[in-house]
């Protein structure tokens, strides 16, 4: 199984050239659930690729279930609502704790200061607590509701697996990471990910890591508070991907980068720009298209 991670594919994508280089000529299975109601608008990708593109339509399948399996989806929604309530508490904690870490670093710009280290440990504990609560809720739903035993869900999952069986590769596009993650997990895509060459970009790339970090420093009301969304599939370990990091992060703010990368350590924090390519862990993209952020806040270009 080969795994290729790409940076954002917009405005110009590298997927066609990478597939050609890899000799992938057969049909491509596409997951574009992150595009939500635009899931089916994959004409640009179809035009750019010589391959046949088979869209797995995860978003559309779920919408049908919403209409037809109301009891099951009601329980699913209740689980998501419970997760949102946990997240509200997590956010309250983060607002205070991030301010403390930033304040300590502003007072003494030393990432090795024991007080700063302690504030980072508190943040990491909160992240772990949130993620373990999320896992507990997902597992309880699986055990109590057993969605895989619902005939309609089983039928959809079987169709997806059958569609995949005839494909030479699987591509997971970016978009809304929450929707993408939830649809992929709901339709149990995990076991299929290692059965054929896998290509993923932006939110799709994030999805393959252990945990999904949401971040944006340039919202309408100023820097947001970076927070974990949930678990990913964990195919890629010890890495946190930050697509469009140059546009979304204030890379001139070394203190913020220090807090962010220290909090995510020991995982490697990797910014992905248009043109970034990792082929089975080896960087083969354009020189400036991927970079790491180290716990001291420094930024380093990815090297081949």
């Amino acid at each position, binding site marked *: 199984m080969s795994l290729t991670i790409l940076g*954002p*594919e*917009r405005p110009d994508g590298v997927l066609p050239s990478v597939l050609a280089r890899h000799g992938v000529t057969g049909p491509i299975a596409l997951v574009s659930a*992150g595009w939500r*109601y635009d899931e089916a608008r994959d004409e640009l990708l179809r035009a750019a690729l010589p391959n046949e593109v088979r869209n797995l339509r995860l978003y559309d399948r779920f919408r049908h279930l*919403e209409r037809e399996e109301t009891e099951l989806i009601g329980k699913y929604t209740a689980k998501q609502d419970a997760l949102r309530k946990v997240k509200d508490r997590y956010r309250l904690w983060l607002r205070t704790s991030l301010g403390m870490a930033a304040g300590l670093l502003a007072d003494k710009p030393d990432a090795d200061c024991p007080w700063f280290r302690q504030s980072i440990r508190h943040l990491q504990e909160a992240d772990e607590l949130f993620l373990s609560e999320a896992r507990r809720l997902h597992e309880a739903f699986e055990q109590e509701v057993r969605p895989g035993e619902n005939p309609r869900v089983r039928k959809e999952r079987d169709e997806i697996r059958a569609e995949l069986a005839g494909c030479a590769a699987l591509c997971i596009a*970016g*978009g*809304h*990471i*929450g*929707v993408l993650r939830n649809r992929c997990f709901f339709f149990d895509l995990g076991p299929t990910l290692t059965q054929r060459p896998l290509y993923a970009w*932006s*939110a799709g790339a*994030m999805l393959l890591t252990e945990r999904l970090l*949401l*971040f*944006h420093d340039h*919202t*309408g*009301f100023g820097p*947001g508070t970076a927070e974990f*969304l949930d678990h990913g599939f964990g195919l890629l370990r010890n890495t946190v991907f930050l*697509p*469009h990091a140059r546009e979304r992060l204030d890379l001139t703010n070394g203190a913020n980068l220090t807090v962010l990368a220290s909090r995510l350590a020991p995982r490697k924090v990797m910014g992905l720009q248009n043109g970034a390519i990792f082929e089975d862990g080896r960087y083969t993209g354009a020189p400036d298209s991927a970079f790491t952020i180290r716990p001291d806040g420094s930024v380093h270009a990815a090297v081949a």
Partner: protein
Amino acid sequence: MQRLLDLIAQIERPRAHRKALLDAFVADTIFPLVTDDHAVFFFWDGTATEAVFLQHWVFGLPSRIELRRIPHTDAFYLPLDLPKTARVEYKFEIVKAGKGRWSADPRNPRRAYDPFGSNSVCPASSYEEPEWTRPDTSSRCGTIVDGELHSAQFGEYRPYQMYVPYGARPGKRYPLLIVHDGSDFLHFAQMRSCLDNLIHRHEVAPLLVAFTSGVQRNFEYAANPKQAAFLATELLPHLRERFPVLPGAEFQGLMGASFGAVSSLYAAVQHPGVWGRLILESGSFAFTDIGEHERGPLWDPIVTFVNEFRANPPKLDAQIYQSCGTFESLIYYNRSLFPVFQRCADQARFTEAPDGHNWINWRDRLREALTWLFPGPLWMYYE
């Protein structure tokens, strides 16, 4: 400024061809002349003029400032310090044959409109019109639905316009924002384009926005229990019946500027637990610490309300976005009220902008207000 000083020096030379000099000057100059941190206002229409005054709404400066005459001419100028990101709306009062009349600056094509007409606009050197306020053909547009309801409070039908976001899906529910002076926000603050752009870019959640307008506006919005009851017990139930409004105070917001901000806050106090999101722009929150206010009887209920609010702030289960222009006389009241909001509301945020009591100021704050109170899924999108 140097160009103007050069012009004045040339004009003062003996036998100078003054009209030709002025013609050449106005032909290749953008008015007002704006440099780093000041602006020079200029008037010359080629006819006999006795005096010219700058009429503006910048609190802290005399509201009527006389322009200086360039010797031997009917041209006038006035240099004024201006913060770099400021924006000033103004008119000229031009005195000819003993009579003064107000006019927009004839040499400045930039205008801002309001229900009373238009003003000339002087943007300082670093002010930029936010690009998200302009119509963008790539943004998917929401629709406006006209509606009306009979109000027992007012004993008549009240119309409204409802903005329904693009792609609103059957079965899905959306947060609701009710806007005071809604028709003016649509016309003078380009709020429809702002909503289209901010929602399309995922910065603001898909949102239902009801634009309402008062009939006896100043009376109805001045801390009036009838208006508060109209909003909570008539308009809100009506809208919830006809549109897919998400239940819960955190999804129900009120917004207003000036008296509209007073009405929004008053409604939230009168009907606790109903309105969980407030946008209060340039609120007319006049109060007195001692003695009487001097703003006229229309303000009496407002002063009574704000005095009581400051003395005994009620617990507000709401997130409040507050803004005010630093050039407004209301800035003092707003600065005084913000610490009270911080204490009594769930969360409060206050922005001061170097602008005045006008629609463009209120428009320019919409992104910050809406993204904070109704954040969209931008956070979630990694394309």
